[in-house]
């Protein structure tokens, strides 16, 4: 199994957020998790990425034959987990290019691959940026600093395509995007998809799934997955909302 979440219960500040959650993802699959606000979707994404604010009360997560809880945030990232943030944070003064260069090399180091030099990296970055319709001028700026909402999301996707993760988690990447930006972002995801990597797409709206076809759709309500199935579920939600699942 590629990613296996078993009976996961998570608390934050004494509040129960995830309750006995189960989810399995195989290589090459695209999963979508839909749910109303406050259902625990983003918590799941952050628990997977290793954010330290949460208390794991119960459960196990296996990722590529590792007990995920044995790995810290950066080790998970280096193992191929990527989280596209819902609200990417600004880091003033830190230029995009060296930032991503360090990121890719830390991953290569862990995988015992040779580090990529400045020049090759600059080339790679430029070609990926132009694939995603990102202006080269943007690469001279500081990480997320002064970016519009759409630019931030696009930059997340650029990072994803550079780091080429095994598991990409997209946390409400569609929120705040107009239709053009949404297309650029989803195109990026579709280009990156192969039979060897997997996607976990967290979304509130069905709209995103018009552009990315998931193999599985899960409905999350109140900290648990209450229903799983194919893309027909997304259409049900589109029509009737989350009401009937609650």
């Amino acid at each position, binding site marked *: 199994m590629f990613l296996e979440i078993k009976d996961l219960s998570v608390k934050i500040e004494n509040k129960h957020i995830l309750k006995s959650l189960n989810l399995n993802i195989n290589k090459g699959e695209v999963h979508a998790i839909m749910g109303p606000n406050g259902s625990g979707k983003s918590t799941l994404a952050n628990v997977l*990425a*290793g954010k330290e604010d949460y208390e794991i009360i119960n459960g196990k997560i296996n990722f590529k034959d590792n007990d995920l809880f044995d790995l810290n*945030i950066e080790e998970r990232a280096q193992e191929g987990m990527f989280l596209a943030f819902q609200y990417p944070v600004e880091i003033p*003064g830190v230029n995009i290019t060296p930032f991503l260069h360090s990121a890719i090399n830390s991953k290569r180091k862990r995988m015992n691959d040779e580090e990529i030099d400045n020049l090759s990296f600059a080339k790679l970055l430029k070609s990926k940026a132009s694939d995603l319709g990102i202006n080269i001028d943007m690469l001279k700026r500081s990480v997320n600093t002064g970016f519009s909402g759409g630019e931030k999301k696009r930059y997340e996707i650029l990072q994803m395509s550079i780091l080429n993760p095994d598991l990409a988690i997209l946390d409400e990447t569609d929120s705040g995007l107009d239709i053009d930006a949404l297309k650029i972002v989803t195109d990026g995801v579709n280009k990156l998809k192969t039979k060897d990597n997997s996607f976990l797409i967290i979304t509130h709206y069905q709209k995103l799934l018009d552009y990315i076809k998931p193999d599985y759709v899960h409905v999350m309500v109140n900290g648990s997955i209450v229903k799983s199935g194919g893309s027909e579920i997304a259409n049900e939600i589109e029509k009737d909302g989350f009401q009937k699942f609650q």
Partner: protein
Amino acid sequence: MNSETLNTLDSYSKNKYKYGFVTEIDDEKPKKGLNEDTIKFISLKKKEPEWMLDWRLKAYSKWKKMTEPKWANLSFPEIDYQDIYYYSAPKGFENKPKDLSEVDPKLIETYNKLGIPLEEQKVLAGVAVDVVFDSVSVATTYKGELEKLGIIFCSIGEAIQKHPDLIKKYLGSVIPPGDHSFSALNSAVFTDGSFVYIPEGVKCPMELSTYFRINAENTGQFERTLIIADKGSYVSYLEGCTAPKRDDNQLHAANVELIALEDAEIKYSTVQNWYPGDEDGKGGIYNFVTKRGLCAGKNSKISWTQVETGSAITWKYPSCILKGDNSIGEFYSVAITNNFQQADTGTKMTHIGKNTKSKIISKGISLGKSQNTYRGEVSFLRKAEKARNYTQCDSLLVGNQCGAHTVPYIDSKNNTAVIEHEASTSKINEDQLYYCRQRGLSHEEAVSLIVNGFCKQVLQELPMEFAVEAQKLVSISLEGSVG
């Protein structure tokens, strides 16, 4: 840095041959303590003219009546001035570590991280080296080029002998010996430093630093530097070395004076990384530095850029006296304190002339149990019509046992003056760390990246080759206190 090291080596080997170290060493052995004899000894050793000795003795008599300035946010034990050597001849091999294995391994680790070659490491760490480098020819080439332009660049000692008119006219003209006790002390006992004179209309074609100075002796504990930029000239001067220097001297009290005449510009950059003491706050340099620039002429400009990461105590306020109309003063500073370091640093901008402008960008980063204070004074004198100042002080705290303080003083006697002051204090942001780590960077790498970003506004003011090293240095200074 390379050539500086080479020069050190060079001077060392020269001195060794000159003085030997078996028979004559006793004559060179200085006596501890400060009195008129000590000063006469120094002056004699430096073969100074009598007027220079008189100057020193006057400063000494002022010093005797003074006490140390106590207003800084620093605490340290009483300095016993009679327990210090004021003239240190080149040391013989017996006092030095014999090889790198006798040097603190952490120091070596830092050198390796900065990518400093082995031979240079030895010099920096004070290891006895018996190698002669062929550096004279390199240095001479530069010196020749500078001489063609009429630029004088030599040690202050050489200048006292060869250019007495300039020395008499300018030495102590910006920092009078009686200014405060450390300037009086320095004036009485200074032993080395640089002298630069840029003639009218000349733009110095290269960054000047001890790098190119062939007479570079070991920069002493009482350094004296004097830079004069004549009308319409330009010079950029680099001071210091990014690698930490092992040094047995506890007290350092340097004086640096800059004079910019009409339309002249001086850019002065420093990276200070003296030994900061160990993790428990033992040892380390007390660095009491007075740096002051005088924009004497119209449209002149003086710009100070400093990266301060070393020393147990830093007491330093590079200042500008904006006397000429339309003159400009700038101060860019990064001060990082870790473990038990204390820094009280900032600037003084004194607006005298019309339309004078000053800009202050200060970035303080505190880690461990350190204390970091920005102290700045901006004053506008009565005739400073339409003068302006912009001040930005940002402090970043890493951890919760350190302190950051901002102490601005503003004094305006002219109501057309405009002052803008922005200040911020922030803790390193957990969301930024999470974001960086999610991309695969370690906690330490993430902190270093964020701090470097925080300092960027200042680091980009440094000359190119210095900036890269300074960035590495910033990362190294942060180590051991995060996580």
